[in-house]
């Protein structure tokens, strides 16, 4: 998608969140959250429902007053600043477009409040609409727009006043799958173009992986891990993150002076063992391979029996029972040589896992 270079890049601001806590009765919606959002980055808050994502975003926008903690935009402490003075753009989950105004009036609204001259405001609103590919839609009423168009108007309204921080709370959740995927890429492009610090909320892991520079995984109001998508997937900090992002089977491991072993066999590991906490071995289905002959030296081997085999078109899914009875899932592409290697149900199978993919995670309390 081509994006018109019209709205000038605004100067982005970093966000610093320190020990922000919010309780509702006994529930910790936010539990001493420390988070640094870098200037100009696209950061996603990811977590299951009720984990505190919206609460954190609202604390940034100023709609939720934390019990304590500090929030700074650049050098400015904002935690006690009312929302209308924070100058952050925000796209609401339901868009919150004003139904009594036209598209153009909605987009020009923040400019009007900032006392921008009428003609200029009209021009800038139209440019913002063009940026989201809705040029010429200004005179429409809100109820004459489709869901995707509304989403874009909301976006145009949030960026038209060139805020240095943009907040979005599940802005795509109301859209159908196809449009959602399309908009994900479009939002990503827009961010590249505008360069404002963006905090994005979703509970869709794929969306988070697709769009973000970094992802903050939140659970029970606590920050679980903050990393780039690739690292988050490959090196999850704990069982919760590993489980929440992607699929996986967890196997118990024995730890002894710097090495780990499964079922008596020492494991070749990607990284040194962290012995301060109990650890588990993470097996991602697509990282396991069905071995034909002898394994290469850098590969850990797991022996088992095929329990079930499912053909899924572009991939297959195999469930295998290991010697100790643990069941693991294996996924692979259905190319010819792989398919030929797969034993029948009930037969013995050897599964290989490359050292770089052999990751231990902190055993979860969940």
């Amino acid at each position, binding site marked *: 998608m081509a994006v018109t270079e019209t709205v000038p890049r605004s100067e982005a601001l970093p966000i610093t969140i320190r020990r922000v806590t919010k309780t509702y009765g006994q529930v910790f919606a936010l539990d001493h959250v420390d988070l640094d959002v870098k200037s100009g980055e696209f950061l996603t808050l990811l977590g299951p429902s009720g984990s505190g994502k919206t609460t954190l975003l609202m604390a940034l926008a100023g709609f939720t007053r934390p019990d304590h903690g500090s929030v700074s935009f650049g050098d400015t402490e904002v935690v006690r600043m009312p929302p*209308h003075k924070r100058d952050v753009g925000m796209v609401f989950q339901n868009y919150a477009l004003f139904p009594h105004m036209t598209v153009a009036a909605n987009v020009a609204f923040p400019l009007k409040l900032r006392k921008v001259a009428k003609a200029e405001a009209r021009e800038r609103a139209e440019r913002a609409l063009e940026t989201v590919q809705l040029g010429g839609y200004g005179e429409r009423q809100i109820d004459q727009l489709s869901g995707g168009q509304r989403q874009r108007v909301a976006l145009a309204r949030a960026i038209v006043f060139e805020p240095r921080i943009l907040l979005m709370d599940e802005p795509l959740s109301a859209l159908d799958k196809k449009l959602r995927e399309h908009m994900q890429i479009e939002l990503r492009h827009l961010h590249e173009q505008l360069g404002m610090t963006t905090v994005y909320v979703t509970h869709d892991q794929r969306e988070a992986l697709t769009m973000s520079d970094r992802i903050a995984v939140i659970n029970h109001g606590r920050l679980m891990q903050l990393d780039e998508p690739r690292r988050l997937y490959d090196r999850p900090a704990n069982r919760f993150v590993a489980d929440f992002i992607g699929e996986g089977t967890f196997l118990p491991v024995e730890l002894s002076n710097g090495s780990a072993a499964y079922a008596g066999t020492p494991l070749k590991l990607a990284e040194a063992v962290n012995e301060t906490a109990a650890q588990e071995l993470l097996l991602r289905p697509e990282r396991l391979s069905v071995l034909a002959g002898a394994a290469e030296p850098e590969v850990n081997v797991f022996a088992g029996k095929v329990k079930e085999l499912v053909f899924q078109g572009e991939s297959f899914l195999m469930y295998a029972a290991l010697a100790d009875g643990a069941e693991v899932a294996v996924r692979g592409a259905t190319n010819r040589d792989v398919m030929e290697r797969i034993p029948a149900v009930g037969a013995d199978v050897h599964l290989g896992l490359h050292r770089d993919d052999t990751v231990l995670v902190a055993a979860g309390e969940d």
Partner: protein
Amino acid sequence: MAVADFAPGAVAEPQDEPHATGLRDDAFRERMAMLGLCSPALLLVLVVLVSPVAWLFWLSFLANDGSLSLEHYERMIASKSYARIFWTTFQVSTLTTMLCILIGYPLAYFLSQLPPRAAAICLITVLLPFWTSLLVRTYAWLVLLQRKGLLNNWAIELGLWDEPVKLVHNMTGTLIGMTHIMLPFLVLPVYGAMKSIDRDYLKAASNLGASPVSAFWQVFFPLSLPGLFAGALIVFVLCLGFFVTPVVLGGGKVIMVSMRITDNIELFFNWGAASALGVVLLALTMGTLYAASRLLRLDRILGEGNG
């Protein structure tokens, strides 16, 4: 649209528009079925609403001896008091509506901001007057406001004023009483409209840089307007036909059409004189409402223009 257009099989179907007539027949039949379902209600409306008005209209053209005549309308032109009574009626209704808006809107806003439980309790207090009789409420105002009533006595005792102030048996008293009685009719629809305004709109406004005051005026207020129009309309129309309160609190100085209607039945011993007043009131009301709706629509267009 003529029924014949939809008659089954009337038109030969072109090859490239399969089932065009059949589908059109279905649509027609559906509409007829709908009409059939509605007809009892329509009939009821016709009998209960339209026929009395038609009868009223007919009676207003009958003279005492039963012959057709315009005498009841001529009398309204000849006697100066009729024009003044219509003027008073509209004046009282307009002022009451305005007072209800001035008091009721902030009240509804306050209620809409309360937590649900507190709002429910407060709403009941607003509605409480509905459970006492109109006459009792009106006389309560008389007791409060009259020359040696509670208010004047207290005020004189406290030294607020030395002589009793005329608070009742005039326009002031009428407006106080009518506003009190009409207030719930305004508060309820406005409250309903306010409750249905999504809080996110206000958050969005605030996020976009609107101070609480401008968020209220630019977002909350326009979104509550439909409720306000509905409430104001109900109050205005109810006021036009009001009888008890202006009789008791107006002291004979605030003469409204409804009062003249009963007087005319007594005086002329015939429904025609009263019917003619009803017909003119109806016509003036419709005219006012039409003008108001035109004006308000214009308003909305203007509101969007500078939005």
